[in-house]
């Protein structure tokens, strides 16, 4: 195990939970990043305003953390641009086909006891475990 960080991760999780709760309590919206991303690059209807603003906040928050704690953005895995490109396509296409990602299904959906989100979360976690196992088993952990 590289480094186990339960306290920092728990605090990070609480902040993510607060973010989703804020959006829900004030705006009645689900903090699903893949949906917000889609709505920002392929705008439709009246949702564009809050989605673009959320995305702007996400970028500014990322910039702030990168200035204060650049080590939190270390890449440190061996992946070719091919692998990253294919991964990007799969994540973009898959999250829209499945109507959500780690945030929309994982955090928000599970909090609402949504059956769809439970199935989605178990599926993408299972696929993630299997993929990392396969990369380790067949490709020695690099791709």
């Amino acid at each position: 195990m590289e480094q186990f960080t339960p306290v920092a991760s728990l605090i990070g999780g609480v902040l993510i939970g607060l973010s989703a709760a804020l959006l829900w309590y004030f705006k009645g919206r689900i903090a699903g990043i893949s949906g917000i991303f889609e709505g920002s690059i392929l705008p439709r209807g009246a949702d564009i305003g809050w989605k673009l603003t959320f995305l702007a906040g996400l970028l500014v928050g990322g910039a702030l953390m990168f200035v204060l704690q650049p080590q939190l953005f270390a890449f440190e895995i061996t992946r070719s641009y091919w692998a990253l490109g294919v991964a990007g396509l799969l994540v973009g296409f898959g999250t829209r086909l499945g109507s959500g990602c780690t945030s929309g299904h994982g955090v928000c959906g599970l909090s609402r006891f949504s059956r769809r989100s439970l199935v989605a979360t178990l599926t993408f976690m299972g696929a993630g475990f299997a993929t990392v196992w396969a990369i380790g088993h067949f490709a020695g952990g690099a791709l």
Partner: protein
Amino acid sequence: MKLAIPFIAGLLFAVGLAFGGMTQPAKVVGFLDLFGDWDPSLAFVMGGALAVNLAVYRFTRAKRERPVLDETFHLPTNTQITARLIIGSALFGIGWGLSGFCPGPALASVVTGTAPVLVFVLFMGLGVYGHALTQRFLASSATAGGDG
């Protein structure tokens, strides 16, 4: 005020992701390496987020008819377990394991300007666009077929 909330929520989300370790692909892959050198840290991210969100969700369901700044809560209406849901989630999981990135952390990392992040986000955008094109094609061929 209406736009301040989503901005603050986005900012808080990115800070939480970075603090929790989600913007380090090695840490994500370590979490997904269940059968190897497993690092359970990210389960704590999920646990913390769920605990807060669950409490607030329960509270608002019991106490509020509508959100503070909108007329209604916007809940997903689909409740069916569909092939789309499962296939889409499986494809996403494969991409997540391949790269160590899911959408939030990848977008929060864009400002680092590093090539792996930019390549991933560019192709993620193409994937989203590809999905929209597929949907449009399916919708138009269904209309052309005349059987809905």
